[in-house]
């Protein structure tokens, strides 16, 4: 009897390790139901926002009589509205995400899916709506955001979409996929992108700034395999491009230092682009426990790896 794919992404042990985590949006988000997240609309919550002069039509319940008694001016008190969150989880399943370095448990796409599944589990537990978009060069699976009880199962099914093939001849088009997702997510919410961001297009991350400008809180989980970061290869090898026909024969030791420089430059560039776009960035090594990555995301005092 084979284990269901969903249990691979979110097993009981992981559920127990993340059981005390909560997700709070840092930015105000739009929601139709009340929840734990800040809303851009002023409402009847207990959180004071500001004073402003009374204007005809304002609800008289918001008039601050104490202020009127002190300075003989009509002012109203404004309170923040708390709402529920619409979170969209974006999973990159391009061919480059299929790399596992010979260890299936460190496969990038699976690790990224586990991170998103755990995040979805937490959000759904908070009553937030969670949807998913799985893409490579195009959208391959779409799950609209809902907060129904059966949404977790649908989410895990959608996130279990595997990459197409080990090697692909199609050029990754991250920008197009993000654009498609942006068109679909609708009102302000949270977007969590799990990807290796390996796209030769310099404008690949430009949609992130557009999404942030629309009011979305964007989180980027830059998922990389330890082999990609450390380049532990030895001797002369024939390296082949995971997403193209190119190949290269070289001595791994001879290019290691230069590769490290290129990788550092690449990671720094990605981090800088995300920050410039108003997104939050985290480097997720696939040999790192998922709860650590999520804890650094969700707990205010543990921000290791998050920006």
């Amino acid at each position, binding site marked *: 009897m084979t284990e269901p794919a969903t249990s691979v992404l979110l097993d009981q042990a992981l559920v127990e390790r993340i059981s005390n985590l909560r997700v709070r949006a840092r930015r105000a988000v739009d929601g139709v139901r009340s929840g734990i997240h800040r809303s851009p609309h002023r409402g009847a919550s207990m959180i004071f926002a500001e004073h402003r002069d009374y204007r005809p039509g304002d609800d008289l319940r918001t008039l601050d009589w104490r202020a009127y008694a002190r300075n003989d001016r009509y002012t109203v008190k404004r309170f923040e509205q708390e709402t529920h969150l619409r979170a969209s989880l974006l999973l990159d399943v391009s*061919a*480059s*995400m299929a*790399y596992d370095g010979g260890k299936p448990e460190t496969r*990038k796409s699976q690790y990224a899916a586990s991170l998103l599944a755990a995040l979805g589990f937490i959000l759904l537990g908070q009553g937030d709506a969670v949807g998913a978009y799985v893409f490579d060069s195009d959208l391959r699976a779409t799950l609209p955001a809902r907060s129904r009880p059966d949404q977790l199962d649908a989410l895990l099914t959608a996130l279990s979409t595997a990459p197409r093939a*080990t*090697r692909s001849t199609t050029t990754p088009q991250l920008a197009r996929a993000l654009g498609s997702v942006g068109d679909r997510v609708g009102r302000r919410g949270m977007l969590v992108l799990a990807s*290796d961001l*390996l796209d*030769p297009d310099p404008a690949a991350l430009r949609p992130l700034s557009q999404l942030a400008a629309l009011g979305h809180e964007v989180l980027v989980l830059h998922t990389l*395999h330890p*082999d*990609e970061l450390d380049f532990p*290869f030895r*001797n*002369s*090898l*024939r*390296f*082949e*491009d*995971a*997403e*193209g026909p*190119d190949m*290269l*024969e*070289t*001595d791994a*030791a*001879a*290019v290691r*230092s*230069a*590769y490290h*420089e*290129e*990788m550092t430059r*690449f990671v720094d560039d990605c981090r800088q682009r995300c920050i410039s776009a108003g997104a939050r960035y985290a480097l997720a090594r696939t040999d790192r426990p998922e709860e650590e990555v999520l804890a650094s995301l969700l707990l205010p005092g543990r921000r290791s790896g998050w920006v």
Partner: protein
Amino acid sequence: MGLETPLALLGLLAALLPLLAHRMRQRELPRVVLPTFILLSRAHARKQSKRSFTDTLLLLLRIAIVTAASLAIAAPYVTARLPFGDGRVAATAIVIDDSLSMMRRDGTDSLLGRARARALAALSGLPQGSEVCVVLAGKPARVLVPLGKDLLTATHELEVLPAVSMRGADLDAAVKLAARALTATRLPTRRVLVLSDFARHTGLDPASLALDGVEVTSERMGSAPKLGNAFVESVHAAPDPTQPGHTSVAVELAQTGAALGSARVELVQSGSVVAATDTTFSAGRARAQLLVPTPDDKGDQVALLRVRVDDALDADNQAGVVLTRADAVRLLLVNGDPHPGSDSDELYYAQRALRLLPETTFALATRTIDPLLLAREPLDATDVVLLANVPAPTAAVAQRLLRFVEQGGGLIVAAGDHVDATLYNAALGAVLPSHLSSVSATSDLRFAAPKNPDFLPSGLSGLRETRTQRRLGLDPAAQSLLDFDDGTPAIAAIEIGSGRSLLLATSLDDAFSDLPLRPGFLPLLVAMIHHASAGAGSSMGRVLPGQSAEVPVSPQSAAVEIVDPTGHAQRFDVGNTQRVVHYPATSLLGAYQVRAADRKTPGKLVARGAFVVSAPREESDLTPGPLPASSKRNTPTAAGSTHQPLGTLVFLFAGLLVIAEGFARLRKRA
């Protein structure tokens, strides 16, 4: 160049192994699908040029290692031409001409330097077990390194061989010396290598090179000189009668070879040029005259004559000059003739004869006084007093003469009409060598053969033909230096104290005999003065470089110091009976000053003469002579060859390549 084991070169095929390994590794590389390929390709592009170079270097190094190892196993060698000989163990005598003509520069080195370098090269090519000796051909020929197997010592001796030599050449004697040295060897092969300029003056007898059982090789050092060569023919210094207090130095230059133009003649004293003049060669000769102040007793009595001319040999362009003869015998002539200056003057013949005496033979400083002045004459500055027909002196003068002789002075009494035997016996009996009898007539009495050849050397023609008509009677028992043929003394002598006294039975003029008219008169006169002065003042003749100078010393001298042209002094203690000091260090051209200390004041040295070491004139003729034929088996072109193995060097080279390959690998990994 060749290989001892050429088959080992098959190992060169192994040089293909790195190429094949390189190709095989490229074909079977493990595949890795890398998502970050784009980053890798960028890194690879940056490293590409460096890596390609390292890979190529590694490949070449590995091929070179295999090639070098194969080559080393093949035992390569180079064929080296031996500098001398055929590589067999042999006894070799190297004759180096270190004469003056070898000081000629040819290119950047002198001929002597070239000969030394050639000898060192020949030594380096001799195999172990060889025997070698080195003979120098500068006169006198001498052995520098005795025959032996110690090649290192021979090499060292050659390396420290003085680069300057002013000697004459004696190649014949040197070759004979070399041949004699080779007779001591037991090795069957014997060789002689003669290194010389073989100038015409060497006059090497070809027959001297025909040595039985010895291979002789003659090698000429340098090429024929392009310039002519000037040299100092003669230098004569004499007081200038026209310039009182000045000495005239007459210089005669000669030349050989191509005609020379002008020359500048300089006289140098204590490093400074005191006189100079220009002269021009005409018909191979040039003359110059220099005038310098006559040095006093404390001044520098010698000088160096230097000729500045663009010629082939510079070493012979100098000569020593003795400006004053401090060693001249100071002869005080006491003229007993009542009419001095006339033809019948007692000293008429003697003075004229002594004036002809060459200074190079015997130096005399004569002064003539009247007998009446003898009483006041200070005898401290006199070596010999000659009383020529002088009436018997007073007792006081006689006492002074006795004391003078006892302290080392010389006294000569010549007979004459004024010599009264009775008065002389009374006044000078204590200092005379014989009791005198009155003058008596004889009938053409002649001299007998000289008893003492040192006193009168043979070859004095005419002396024994002298006819004596009158003579002063001498005691037959007296010590005689020369007898009449009737057995009676003609010249009696005696040593009194440190001095000597002589008595001539006849007169110095023609009143008693025809002696003054005979050719032997001057030699006899000089012999008497020389004997009376105990050898002082006699010339050392012409001293050549390398010859031992015989420096005469007076009986009063306790020590002699000789100062060479460079100022280096050497002191010799003189024994009581020693009359000659042998001075061998005559390697430099120039004037050597002699100083002497009297026994009374041994610490005070005073100038007592000088001698000149002159360049051998024949050495100035640089015209190349014929090159003696070498033995057929050992001509320079027939020199042997030897194999110099290179295997070890190639192995070392391969080791260096292995180290370099290791560094290249480390560089690639880094």
